[in-house]
């Protein structure tokens, strides 16, 4: 684990501000990305902007409703406020999605591990100069967005090639379309496949793994980042390994019921992992490859 940006409550300012007590943030802009995904840009009312590594998450509070774990979708290189992409799937996320510019939201974090794409991560299994394959399913692109920004920028400076493979339910559910176009302009190979086409859709229809054969990366040197529904991650990781990608160089993002964010409450335990602390980003090799294939008890 490279990140030293994880919050340690023992090192906080005494009252656990940020780790235990939400820091008030104001919604400075909101964007309806798809019918059920809203991007909220948040600025702290006071104090510095949170420093977050791609892949980490915050606990967002909709006051009077509840708290929920939401990954950060802005990139460290983004000059603007921190962004969260919220999918309207429950009471808390519904309240967050309905928030308006000027509303206050509580933020605790950042929590968890990251995608290991930061320059100071000298032992990163991702940044060895080989190709990097990023596979995202649905809203799973949100926690990967910052990592792709980093990787594409790095590729322009002589780093490994970047391949972004996107799976979505249908064309209207594809998120970050502007980013996909920008990444492609900047040299990344971006392929998108949907489960269900539409009359206007002229692109690929099929499982996201069907994009692997067309992508054209060098499996022997490639690393991979995968985020999406667990079944999608399981089949994607297996397909990558079958192609020759080293499982130790595949990272996946796992999520369970994140509550405290500090590894205290145990709600997010998965096998030996407390995912809010040891995850969400974990190596696929070893325990995780088995956990992804086993029924939880």
């Amino acid at each position, binding site marked *: 684990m490279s990140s030293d940006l994880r919050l340690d409550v023992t090192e906080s300012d005494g009252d656990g501000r940020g780790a235990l007590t939400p820091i008030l943030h104001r919604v400075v802009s909101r964007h309806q990305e798809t019918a059920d995904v809203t991007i909220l840009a948040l600025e702290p009312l006071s104090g510095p902007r949170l420093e977050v590594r791609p892949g980490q998450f915050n606990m967002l509070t909709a006051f009077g409703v509840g708290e*929920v*774990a*939401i*990954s950060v979708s802005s990139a460290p290189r983004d000059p603007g406020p921190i962004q969260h992409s*919220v*999918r309207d*799937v*429950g009471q808390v*996320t519904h309240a967050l999605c309905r928030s308006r510019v000027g509303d206050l939201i509580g933020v605790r974090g950042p929590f968890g591990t990251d995608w290991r794409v930061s320059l100071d991560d000298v032992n990163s299994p991702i940044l060895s100069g080989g190709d990097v394959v990023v596979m995202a*399913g*649905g*809203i*799973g692109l949100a*926690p990967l967005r910052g990592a792709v920004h980093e990787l594409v920028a790095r590729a322009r400076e002589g780093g490994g090639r970047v391949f972004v493979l996107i*799976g*979505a*339910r249908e064309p209207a*559910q594809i998120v970050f379309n502007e980013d996909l176009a920008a990444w492609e302009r900047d040299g990344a190979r971006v392929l998108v*496949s949907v*489960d269900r*086409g539409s*009359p206007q*859709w*002229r*692109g*690929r*229809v*099929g*499982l996201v*793994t*069907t994009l692997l*054969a*067309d992508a054209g990366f060098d499996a022997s040197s490639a690393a991979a980042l995968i*985020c*999406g*529904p*667990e*079944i*999608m991650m399981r*089949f994607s990781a297996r397909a990558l390994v079958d192609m020759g990608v080293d499982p130790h160089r595949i990272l996946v*993002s796992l*999520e369970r019921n994140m509550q405290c964010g500090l590894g205290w409450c145990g709600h997010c335990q998965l096998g030996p992992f407390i995912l809010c602390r040891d995850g969400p980003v974990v190596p696929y090799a070893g325990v995780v490859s088995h956990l992804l294939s086993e029924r939880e008890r």
Partner: protein
Amino acid sequence: MSESMADLVRSHPVAAGLGDDAVALLVGCAKNVAFNADELLISEGASADTFYLLRRGHVAIEVHSPERGALVIETVGPGAVVGWSWLVPPYRWTFDARALEPVGAIAIDGACLRTKALSDPAFGFAMLSKVSVELLERLQATRLRLLDLYGRTDVQ
């Protein structure tokens, strides 16, 4: 220098691991073909006498609905086998296959291949095994899509 038909067949994944004799049998039923964008490789209801080993370009497997027009079930690209109905009676195509862009393919005469497979069971089994690999992969992918993975709330 143009590639021979044997080279073209050998370069397709379906021929991977096949011996020279088997490739020669396959080549005897094969010809090189090309399609323009929007051209149909296969028409629903037509006799399934030729299937295709895609070399370049993508193809949409479609079914037509009076209310909704052509519905794309999936798209396939280079390395794929397009058409399986030549394998089993009544040898009739179930879906359309439409070129999404200029497509290069090896057309295989299904009746020719069936005849050779019957007279050479080892070759027949090898071919059936090859086609079954893709059948299985496509069936598994279809099953996963039926789960509507991205409609779930697993990731936030």
